[in-house]
């Protein structure tokens, strides 16, 4: 019984969070000690979705960047992960892959910012894409390590020993085996890009306005109603992915 109550509390606490954001996004004049705002209006929604196109552009940009980062890092991660898994000092290589991934993104951004300025890529979408790749690519390499197990490598070798060309092996042996993982990696690297703030801000110079950058801006505008709305928008696509398949958001080990 107690268990049931606790799980209900937990579930409703999670749900209430989202409802709270929903309430703020249509609220105005939320003064102490009122639990509900004094006025409700769809003004924030209208302004952001109809009037100013900033949020729409941010949404589109985030999507494009996310998909770009996801495709590039998943593909390159898949191929290069195989190479690393066969390397003599595999663990040392892997340790290197953890480097950018564990560093605080802002600290990393501070350190690499000059490189992007030097190559003229800062303030450009391409620069931010590459910057996010610094995070997403090693993630993908580490991610696919579990796929390139001894069995898979053997299977590939068998197929080739039997005379199958490399392309055939890839298409008919490796890809079908890896498909679920490829999909998961795609969405997880998409999310890395989707949520990224530090590198995007420092490399994008405020010119590349992804949704996350906009959320930060609204939070700092002291307008909690806009901030709540933008927060909802940023949580929506991952929630949608979750609804499609939980594995897209979370993968155990």
């Amino acid at each position, binding site marked *: 019984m107690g268990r049931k109550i606790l799980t209900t509390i937990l579930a409703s606490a999670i749900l209430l969070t989202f409802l709270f954001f929903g309430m703020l996004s249509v609220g*105005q004049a939320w*003064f102490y000690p009122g639990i509900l705002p004094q006025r409700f209006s769809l003004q924030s929604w209208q302004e952001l979705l109809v009037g*100013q196109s900033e949020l729409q552009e941010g949404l589109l940009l985030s999507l494009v960047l996310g998909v770009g980062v996801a495709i590039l890092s998943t593909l390159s991660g898949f191929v290069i992960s195989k190479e690393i898994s066969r390397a003599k000092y595999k663990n040392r290589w892997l340790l290197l892959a953890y480097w950018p991934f564990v560093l605080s993104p802002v600290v990393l951004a501070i350190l690499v910012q000059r490189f992007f*300025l*030097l*190559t003229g890529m800062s*303030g450009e979408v391409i620069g931010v894409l590459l910057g996010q790749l610094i995070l997403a690519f090693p993630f993908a390499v580490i991610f696919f390590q579990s796929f390139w197990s001894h069995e898979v490598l053997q299977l590939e070798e068998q197929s080739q020993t039997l005379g199958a060309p490399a392309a055939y092996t890839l298409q008919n042996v490796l890809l079908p085996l890896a498909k679920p993982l490829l999909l998961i990696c795609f969405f997880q690297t998409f999310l890395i890009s989707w949520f990224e703030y530090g590198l995007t801000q420092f490399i994008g*110079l405020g010119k590349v306005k992804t949704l996350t950058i906009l959320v930060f801006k609204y939070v700092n505008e*002291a*307008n909690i109603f806009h901030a709540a709305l933008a927060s909802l928008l940023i949580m929506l696509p991952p929630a949608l992915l979750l609804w499609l398949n939980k594995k897209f958001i979370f993968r155990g080990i």
Partner: protein
Amino acid sequence: MKNQSILFLLLTLLFSSCGNSEEHEQLNVQEADWQSIEQAAKGTTVQLMMWQGDPLINKYMQSYVKPQLQEQYGITLEINSGQGKDIVGLALGEKETGKTESEIDVAWINGETFYQLRQLDALYGPFTELLPSNQYVNWQNPFIARDFQQPVEGMEAPWGNVQLAFIYNSEIIPTPPASFAELETYIQNNPGTFTIPNEFTGMTLLKSWLIAQAGKEELAGEFDETKYKKYSRQLWQKLNKLKPYFWKEGQNYPATLSQLHQLYANGEVRFTFSNNDGEVDNKILQGVFPESSRAYVPAPGTIQNTHYLGIMKNAGNLPGALVVINFLQSPEAQYQKASPQVWGDGTVLAINKLPVAWQEKFNNIPARQHAPDRATIQKRAFEELAPEYMIRLYDDFRTEVIEQN
């Protein structure tokens, strides 16, 4: 094969954007007449970097300035989000990496950014004499002609003029403390309801407090170490005495103005501050502040500050930058901006220099509802101090007050 093509793709990506820093012939704007500058600017894009922390300001730029520039001059204005520190960071980075063309053309700056950009030699100019609108600018006003005690010398164009104001809720405090001296008693009698934001506006407050102690003329001119030491010590002593009565017993301070605004809106503290004396009106309009909010300037006064537009030394589009700034200084854009419904930003134009029709318009700007009258607070205006004061106050406020236990 596949591997190599991926490698190739990555390399292409890596270097694709390296090649686009081509030099192009720019019009010599110092020699050209205004018409040919406008001609050269037509059809170009101008990159403006500005602080975007206020929805109403953003709206003014988005739905008035941008379309007008497009319509009247055929210029596409792109607005990039970035405060003074970001602009300086960018200028520094570009200098260090030897970039010949800046990412931005125009930047919204004020005193301390101006000082830093000049340290880096990152500003273009002098240019204000080139602008037709310049004839209306109120250069006689020392608050406009000097920025943080530094002569502007045509290196930045005034855009707006504001003064630090205290904002309070008239329902909770019918008669707010009339002076800095009274404020001290007020804080002691109402513990836990006052705090100082540890950022730009907070530092402007501390500077005002410093001047209130030292007297209007005492700290004018270049940075003076002995004077700073003398008066800042007095100020820290005062603040440390008041500290136990601050919000959270002075153990913590809001890091951003927006946090303080929220604390104020919810009644957690009773005062917030704004570098724009008209902000209270637009925050009420947005439903962020309670209706009964009012703004005022305590005696002996607070800092009045002009904000400016500068052009980056390596701007890729000088003619465009000039036309944009000229438009932002024009009577129509300044008039639009001064209305409390739009932004409530004080104009930098001298009304008596304007054509009569504009004079009338400016004299009939809808009255401020909850903000103080400009003419009244002008008597309580302090000039900005030399930028070093700000730098030192910022450091010392941390070591002498925040970190003292």
